[in-house]
């Protein structure tokens, strides 16, 4: 069973929202500092519920192969059980080779991959390699601008669906209420897997109203 599914189906998830810790990694990432940062955030938040770790490449440019090596180390030395999600650009995946990348992800213990610049229409070229046993989930993204695409994008989603939102929409009010609430209400109604908020807003109290319609939120560390 994919670790993401294990976490999301855990009993405790019903009590407290899932937290997706989001951090960049590079060749100079210090694992001890990373675990400390997570620990500090846990203290700040009090209870955090089930956790997922999302990693993305540092600004100075890390190749997919290097990222996978770092993930392997991280899995071995720090987080043997926590679900790991890799966020990277499709160019990095394409350069590594699509089949080779998905195989390497499986080997490294990656549970999910998130490729923001790979919309639904371009995904079949990668999805064909994700059918193998133990392969990571390709996580889907939706946002208020997705509109009537939401059922199609989320229709075959696995793991969870990331909900992003343009900051200008956070407080936008519509005739029938808050824009984001309406979006999440509609998304929750059609989405077969839980929603995770990625609003680039780490204020969990501020996100409270939206967490009623989502399983958890993403927190940058």
């Amino acid at each position: 069973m994919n670790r993401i599914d294990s976490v999301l189906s855990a009993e405790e998830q019903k009590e407290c929202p899932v937290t997706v810790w989001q951090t960049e990694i590079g060749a100079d990432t210090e694992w001890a500092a990373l675990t400390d940062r997570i620990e500090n955030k846990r203290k700040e938040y009090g209870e955090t519920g089930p956790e997922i770790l999302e990693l993305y490449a540092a600004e100075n440019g890390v190749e997919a192969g290097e990222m996978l090596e770092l993930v392997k180390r991280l899995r071995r030395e720090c987080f043997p059980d926590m679900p790991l999600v890799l966020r990277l650009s499709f160019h990095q995946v394409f350069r590594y080779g699509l089949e080779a990348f998905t195989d390497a992800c499986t080997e490294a213990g990656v549970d999910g991959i998130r490729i923001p610049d790979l919309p639904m229409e371009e995904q079949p070229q990668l999805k064909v390699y994700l059918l193998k046993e133990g392969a990571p989930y390709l996580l889907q993204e939706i946002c208020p601008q997705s509109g009537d695409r939401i059922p199609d994008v989320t229709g075959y989603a696995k793991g969870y669906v990331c909900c992003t939102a343009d900051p200008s929409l956070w407080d936008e009010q519509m005739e029938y209420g808050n824009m984001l609430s309406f979006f999440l209400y509609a998304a929750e109604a059609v989405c077969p897997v839980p929603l995770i908020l990625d609003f680039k807003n780490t204020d969990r109290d501020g996100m409270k109203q939206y967490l009623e319609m989502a399983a958890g939120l993403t927190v940058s560390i």
Partner: protein
Amino acid sequence: MQKGYFGKFGGRYVPEAVMNQLFSLECEVDLTESDRCFWDAYDRYMETWAGGKTPLYLAENLSEQIGCKLYLKRGDVNDAAFFGPATGQLLLWKRIGYRKAVAETGCGLWGVAVARAAAMMGMECVLYVAAEEEERQQPMLEMMKLCGARLVTAGRDSVSEAIAYWADHSGDTCMIMTGDWGPYPYTEAAASLQKLIGEEMKGQMEAQEGKLPAVLVAGVRPEYVLSGLFAPFFEENMRLYGAEPEGKNGIRTTGIAGGMRTLAFQDDKGRISFTRSYKEPAPVLGPELADRTESGRICLETVSGREAEAARALAARTEGIRLSWYDACSLALAVKKAGQLESQDYLTVFLNKGEDGQ
């Protein structure tokens, strides 16, 4: 062929937040194909604001020097050829209902084109400018600011930064892609606009010579939109060349950049830099150009700095024409090809706006 692809190049590699915008643009591009209102408005802008049709000039002195009849399509004498793709894109987005636009500019002139067109259409404009170019392009940046554009300093991948801004503000902001770059349907839109210049050139050549040239040369800058400029000639029996200066980046390989799958210069880590000096080859090719290059229909050839300088001097000395760096490369390449032509053949070089807007 898969929709949105030219062979293996093209596609839509952009965040989900802008996908519906791309569908709107696709619908608008389809609608405008037969919509006289759009083309009337576009023609009016091109004629009365950008300067209209440009002449095809028989460069007699140059022809004598190189031993072959040479025409220069003077796209450099006004703004129409260079500003067309920016103006057309803005017009399309304005029809859809957008009033704010974001774009990136590598070596300045494209930014000026977008800023000026946006000002003329009463649209707000945000421009991502490569940090390395800021100092060198001061006069052009001043022009962009004068036109009311807000400038944002970008890193080496100014296109991705502009796309990220677009995704974050897609509720009210559209993206103006540089020349023939971008996800589907940007390339089609730019090509259909620039095709008008190609058709104009074709008509002029047929009228003056009664036949088409054996060789047509133009610079390989994204702003030239070669896929559109050369479109009326793809089925003709003639050689099409793209000229570019020599660079230090090796060869372009397939990658994902600027929302499309295409050929791009990449470093050993696969990073693509969009920072581009006007004396260097374009870092990325538009997808249709990449496909036409791979299939051999358009040949891209490089010219050394010395050859370009010599061509620039030759044009100034014999015709009193000041060439931009890319146009100097085009002329240098044309001079090389002149020796391979039959006596009854002629060649044409397309000129466009240069690095300093001249």
